[in-house]
């Protein structure tokens, strides 16, 4: 199952609620302001590192670029995907939950 998060983890609880309710083995895609959760050295990094042991985490490249976040600033293990990758993730999942 694919979970998407499009809100900043510093402003909304979408990331926390997703991590509380997503089953282990799920995919999580960070997009729009959700990509701020992918950056190294933030207050949410420990939470994301923990998440990486339970989930496969992706961040949407075009949204990282739009916000000036270079790939070397990302937490190791987070995979960058483009719009085509987003489509593949959604198409290969039985269902998608958008944590708005």
């Amino acid at each position, binding site marked *: *199952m694919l979970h998407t998060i499009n809100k900043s983890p510093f402003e909304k*609880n979408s990331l926390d609620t997703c991590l509380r*309710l997503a*089953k282990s083995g799920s995919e999580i895609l960070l997009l729009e302001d959700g990509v701020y959760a992918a950056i190294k050295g933030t207050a949410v990094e420990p939470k994301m590192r923990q998440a990486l042991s339970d989930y496969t985490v992706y961040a949407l490249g075009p949204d990282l670029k739009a916000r000036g976040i270079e790939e070397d600033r990302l937490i190791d293990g987070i995979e960058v995907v483009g719009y085509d990758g987003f489509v593949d993730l959604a198409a290969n999942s039985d*269902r*998608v*939950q958008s944590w708005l």
Partner: protein
Amino acid sequence: MGNGAKKFMYVNRRAPYGTIYALEGLEVVLIGAAFDQDVCMAFVDDGVFQLKKGQDTNESNMKNFSPTYRALGDYDVNKLYVEKESLEQRGMSEDDLLELTYEDEEDDYKEKPSIRIVNKEELADLMEQQDVILNY
């Protein structure tokens, strides 16, 4: 419910009144109920405030739509899952919630509670069982 029925879950994560999400979400559920699908609702995070009993909007000049939740049972929407962790974080328990019931046509139209308190693991399992999940 026909064999072609899909399982729909409406996830509510916002408080009533501050934004229009809760009211709009409730209206969509009631409209969607006409399509004879297997519908349930989940109340998570501030969404649990939607079901708080004793809402009174007389002095704020807004429509009190909390009585509308009572209509859900008549539309065969009788699985309202409330996440225990969200309730506890907000200092609430089942006693704080509206008493919502439905008549079980398979059990001699007995009145049964629609609200079911579930923990995060149970809710995660329920989400995995849906065909479609919609968010408000």
